[in-house]
């Protein structure tokens, strides 16, 4: 018996073919739009627009980088001058405190007020300077704590001096040591950091011009190349909208280069001019006040004077060396006159006439050592204010023009991109 095996029925469903996906459709449409001569024109147009937009962005970035560097240089310069001013005021306070101590407890009221004002100003400026950065906050915070201790020591020195206690001189010397060991070094350290930051900012600013050059190569080069391709395809030599866009981009890039170069030049002038002068003047004043304090400390430590007078000479030489004689002839002359008067006092002390030396050192009469020093101090303070203001204003002015030009570059860049697109569109219309 045989049995027939019937194959199992096969069920088939009539499923329609899946519709092409949207992505595939878009891809197909793009391929179609980019094929043939119209397609190549569209590619040229896209490439040209991309080059112009990229050029505008790079140019804007270059200008912003320059502006940011100048901003940083201006901020660090301002901070540097602020720190120098704090150092000057502290040195001035120390000089006033030590000189008034020589008055045997009956210090001149004017000197007392000078000390109080200088210390108060220094304390306020120190708090302001500490807000500049985290590193400043830490270092200057320590300096401020030491400054509180310094003022307490000076107060103890003064109180003991008025009561006739010799420990007053020990307090005063401890205060001066605190100033030199714990207060001035962190200030100097932060001032050095500012100097390095100014240098780095100028260097970073210089790099911006290469970025601007790159922007010009990409933008102008891209447009010129696009027009060459257009000429090949359309057999027309000039595409007016594209040519106008190229010209516009060239003009605005040249304008940006001129403004950037002018800002760079102005910044360099400020760095080599007012800023350097202000730093030199400030350094000279700090050292000169330090010399004045050393003069009084030597007399307070009766019998410690010698021919070498090293501490005073070190400070005085620094004060002299920091002054550019060609520019500050008057201040230099006044400083030399003070130096001569001091040397006479020291020689009097070395020769054993301490009483006369002290009388000369605390005198404020015309032609006295204090009078001569005050002349130098007044002159340099006025010069310093002039230079510091000029440095701050000119750095700000140089910077003011950069960001508006960056904005113009972006706007013109977009217009140029539109112009190129329009110019190619005119050629495309001929294929419809």
């Amino acid at each position, binding site marked *: 018996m045989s049995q027939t095996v019937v194959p199992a029925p096969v069920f088939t469903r009539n499923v329609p073919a899946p519709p092409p996906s949207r992505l595939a459709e878009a891809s197909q449409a793009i391929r179609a739009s980019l094929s043939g001569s119209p397609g190549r024109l569209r590619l040229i147009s896209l490439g040209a627009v991309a080059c112009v937009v990229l050029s505008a962005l790079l140019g804007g970035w270059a200008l912003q980088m320059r502006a940011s560097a100048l901003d940083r240089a201006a901020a660090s310069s301002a901070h540097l001058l602020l720190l120098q001013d704090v150092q000057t005021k502290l040195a001035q306070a120390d000089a006033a405190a030590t000189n008034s101590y020589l008055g045997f407890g009956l210090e001149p009221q004017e000197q007392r007020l000078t000390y109080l004002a200088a210390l108060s100003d220094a304390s306020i400026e120190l708090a302001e300077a500490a807000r500049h950065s985290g590193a400043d906050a830490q270092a200057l915070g320590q300096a401020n704590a030491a400054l509180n201790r310094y003022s307490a020591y000076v107060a103890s020195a003064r109180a003991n001096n008025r009561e006739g*206690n*010799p420990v007053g*001189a020990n307090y005063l010397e401890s205060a001066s040591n605190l100033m030199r060991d714990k207060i001035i070094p962190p200030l100097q350290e932060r001032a050095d950091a500012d100097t390095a930051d100014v240098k780095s900012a100028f260097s970073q600013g210089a790099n911006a011009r290469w970025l601007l050059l790159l922007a010009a190569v990409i933008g102008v080069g891209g447009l010129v190349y696009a027009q060459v391709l257009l000429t090949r395809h359309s057999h027309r030599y000039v595409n007016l909208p594209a040519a106008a866009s190229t010209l516009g981009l060239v003009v605005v890039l040249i304008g940006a280069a001129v403004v950037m170069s002018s800002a760079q030049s102005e910044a360099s002038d400020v760095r080599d001019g007012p800023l350097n002068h202000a730093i030199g003047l400030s350094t000279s004043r700090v050292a000169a006040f330090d010399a004045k304090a050393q003069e009084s400390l030597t007399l307070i430590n009766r019998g410690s004077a010698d021919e070498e007078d090293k501490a005073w000479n070190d400070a005085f030489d620094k004060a002299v060396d920091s002054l550019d004689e060609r520019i500050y002839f008057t201040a230099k002359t006044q400083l030399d006159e003070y130096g001569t008067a001091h040397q006479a006092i020291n020689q009097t002390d070395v020769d054993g006439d301490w009483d006369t030396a002290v009388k000369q050192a605390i005198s404020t009469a015309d032609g006295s050592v204090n009078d001569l020093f005050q002349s130098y101090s007044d002159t340099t303070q006025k010069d310093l204010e002039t230079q510091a203001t000029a440095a701050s204003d000119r750095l700000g002015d140089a910077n003011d023009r950069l960001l508006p030009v960056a904005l113009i570059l972006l706007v013109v860049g977009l217009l140029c991109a539109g112009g190129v697109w329009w110019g190619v569109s005119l050629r495309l219309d001929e294929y419809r």
Partner: protein
Amino acid sequence: MVMNLSKRALTATAAGVLLLAGCGAAPTATIQAQPAAAVLAATEVETCSQDGLSATASFAPDGISTNPSSWSDESTMGKIRKSGKLVVGVAGDVKLWGSRNSQTGQLEGFDIDVLKRIATEIGPGLKIEYKVINFAERQPALIDGDVQLVAHTMTMTCPRWFDENAINFSTEYYRAGQKVLVRSDSKATTLADLEGQKICAATGSTSLANLKEQGGDPLEVSDVGDCLVKFQEGEVIAITSDDTVLAGFAAQDPYAEVKGEAITEVPYGVGIAPDDVEFTQFVNAVLEEMRSDGTLQRLTDKYMAGTGELPAVPKAVYGRKVDGR
């Protein structure tokens, strides 16, 4: 350490009693060269192994007096008289002994008055040029010739007589003692009571050497006056120095007090350049006069009154020979 200190304190106390007994007699008007061993005052200070004499022994005047006719042609006194100026090393921050009067600006104190008398004896109207020096500078200043005399609460010790930086000393003009200065509410009276705590002492001082020897924890300062700053600022718990110096500190700080017995006997002498025997003899002659006319007693009363029991004016001890060094 406590045991050692207690023994030292007992010894010092006994020495002080003997010393007072020995020095209680009226000062003698005549210059007498006495062998060191025979003088009671010298028994409690160190005896120098180099010549077997007390550290307080000096050169007898032997004919050198305050009369310029007794001086040799090349004497230092003659040269000083001729120059019109005596250059001296003093303390500038040791109240009662050598410190600046803040009202007048002038240096004043026991040591200053001794030097003024010596200057007067060299020549009437002789000008004194003061060089304020710290403890460690006293011997170098004499050896280098920067100063001609040092009166600076200077302890007469054998090393200072005989070591590398040896100088000459006059006879003793004051007997001090090393003590401790603490807060007035402190119960500490000895270095042993302050074990493990920071104690201030001046570099180059015998007090510092003693403190180190007894295992103390010192904070060294160049000027002893800085110790009072450290003490008042709370950086040290006590100061150890001569009671003369500490008395000056206590006079400046009502919350500081000199406590306990003297740890060591501290004889003061005027420092003189090494090998200038004639000048040393002259200074000794001046000091003899100051003993005999009561000047040293008056100076003791003037500057040290109110600082506790005053020591008697020490008698001169002689016997040191030039070739003994």
